[in-house]
């Protein structure tokens, strides 16, 4: 097994060291992550690829602080988060991370404004400040006139823009995008990807999970997973086949 993590560096936003995630399925142990070591630099754009069952969802959950490693270490912006309790992980998600999902995951009964304000609510912002920030973000994604609409009144592309605005509300260092174009037509999907590109240019680190190669092409780095391990990493088109 080859270590993809270089020497620890303050440039790393994400760093996994021999990360294992083992699920108990009845009598059988499933190694969703079977010892992954990798590090992502700040400001990079990564695509995590692989067939279903390859461990890419688990990878995403671990990196997104939604789940904990069975063994190994995970450093987020230099801090070891592998042994943190639920509340501390929530705190990390709240302050460092933003999420964009395939199915948008907006709260249907809340207006666009309220959906965008959600992270600010948990950050303890007051109502006036939150409203101003929500308006600002909505304008940034081109939905300044839809603040009082409900998600059901929006198109798929608009919903995903709201989700992006929400993911940006807490000014996260790291944005996770889980198949962000999966429910969108090609043209709309392209607009969303352009938005992600723009965010990356502005300095946000983006980790995108996808199984479509042309979508993954937006990323500078592609991480291919297979059977809970890193199959290969492509950087700017140069494949490095590491496992063989």
């Amino acid at each position, binding site marked *: 097994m080859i270590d993809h993590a270089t020497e620890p560096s303050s440039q790393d936003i994400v760093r996994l060291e021999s990360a294992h995630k083992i699920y108990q399925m009845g009598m059988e142990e499933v190694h969703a992550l079977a010892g992954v070591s990798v590090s992502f630099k700040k400001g990079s754009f990564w695509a995590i690829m692989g067939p279903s069952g390859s461990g890419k969802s688990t990878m995403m*959950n671990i990196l*997104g602080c*939604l*789940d904990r490693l069975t063994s190994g270490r995970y450093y987020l912006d230099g801090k070891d988060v592998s042994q943190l309790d*639920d*509340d501390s992980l*929530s*705190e*990390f*998600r*709240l*302050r460092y*991370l933003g*999420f964009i*999902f395939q199915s948008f*995951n*907006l*709260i249907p*009964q809340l207006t666009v404004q309220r959906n965008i304000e*959600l*992270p600010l609510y*948990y*950050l*303890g912002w*007051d*109502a006036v400040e939150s409203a101003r920030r929500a308006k600002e973000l909505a304008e940034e994604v081109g939905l300044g006139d839809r603040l009082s609409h409900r998600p059901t009144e929006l198109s798929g592309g608009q919903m995903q823009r709201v989700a992006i605005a*929400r993911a940006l509300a*807490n000014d996260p260092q790291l944005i996770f995008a889980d198949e962000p174009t999966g429910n969108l037509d090609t043209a709309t999907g392209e607009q969303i990807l352009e938005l992600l590109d723009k965010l990356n240019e502005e300095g946000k680190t983006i980790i995108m999970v996808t199984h479509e190669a042309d979508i993954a092409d937006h990323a500078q780095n592609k991480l291919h997973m297979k059977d809970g391990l890193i199959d290969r990493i492509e950087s700017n088109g140069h494949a490095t086949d590491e496992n063989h």
Partner: protein
Amino acid sequence: MQQTRITRNIWLGIENLLLHKLRSFLTMLGVVFGVGSVVAMLSVGEGASKEALEQIRKLGSNNIIVSSTKPVEDEMASTQHSHMSIFGLTYDDYARMMHSYGGIRQTAPVKLMRKDSRLRERAMELRVVGTTPQWFDLVPRDVLAGRVLVPSDQKGLSPVAVLTEFGARKILATENTIGQTITIGGDSFEVVGIVKSEESGQAGNIQIPDQEVDVYIPIEVARQYFGDIFSKRSSGGFEREKVELHQVILQVEDPKRAEATAAAIESMLGRFHKKKDYAISVPLALLKQAEATKRRFNIVLGSIAGISLLVGGIGIMNIMLASVTERTREIGIRRAIGAKRGQIISQFLIETVVLSTMGGLIGLGLGALIPLLITHFSGMATVLTLNGILLPLFISMGIGILFGLYPAMHAARVDPIVALRHE
């Protein structure tokens, strides 16, 4: 800042509940009726017991009331003509009661009879109460005009009469009537005063000593003018009774000794009377009894209320659990964004408490309205106490917390990874 955060959370809870108005209303209904029935029952119960306590208080809590009662055998014998039943307390009994017991502060013997009375052109039957000045200490009533009986009336056998407010109004007596002559059973009396009358009524099983149409005269005068033998018109002709004293009211120094003194008097009377032609009642004992009854009543009401509120609470819990399941995805989103378990718990808990408290408030309105209607239509006294309002309200909030906790914790246990895939 903390304050505004709580208010904001409550508003968010209300907003969420308003999204499902019908469901929220139906969920509340259990608590509405629970609290409503508690408030209504408490106020009716409080009213009833207050009325009873008021009546007993009128009897005087230091008093012992010994009354003459017609024995059962005489009741049957009196159907025969020319029979005269002799029963009741005697002047000797009164003397013995007055002198044989320590701790008695005052006593008042009472002779009662009904006589046609006339003041100028107005005539009506009054209840004549022959008694001593002590009566007015034992059954204290406000003096509206003139004076009450005084010791010199007794000694001088003065034919004076004190009217009650109600009786006075019936025969058109006013303040100006003081000094005028009233005819009672054919004899002339001078009106010397008018006292306030209490509504006559029952307290427990004994009659309040005074009535609305009383006229008070010195007992010696009553004895001399009217004697001890009374004729009453009955279905079989005339019925004759010889009763020396109809009532003796005693006032003890120490209310704690009232029951013991009553027992001693009872055993003394038992030695001198062959038949049980007297009855002794102690208002204080009645008071205690009434309070015990009230306590029991409250326990029963409390249990019924408890059950109805429990049912209401379970209803809320049921709907909240369903709501948690329905909102699994929302919980997952909030958790992914960074909400802590505690924040999810408080979100759902606030919703439940808002729901149950709103139910409590509506129930309170309903529960306050019912006693008003009862009082309006049946004349029964109802009392809405502050406790009767606050207690059910706090209980309804408590129910929100108690029955909201489980669904809220259920919500907090939702795994965000699973919840986000939840359809």
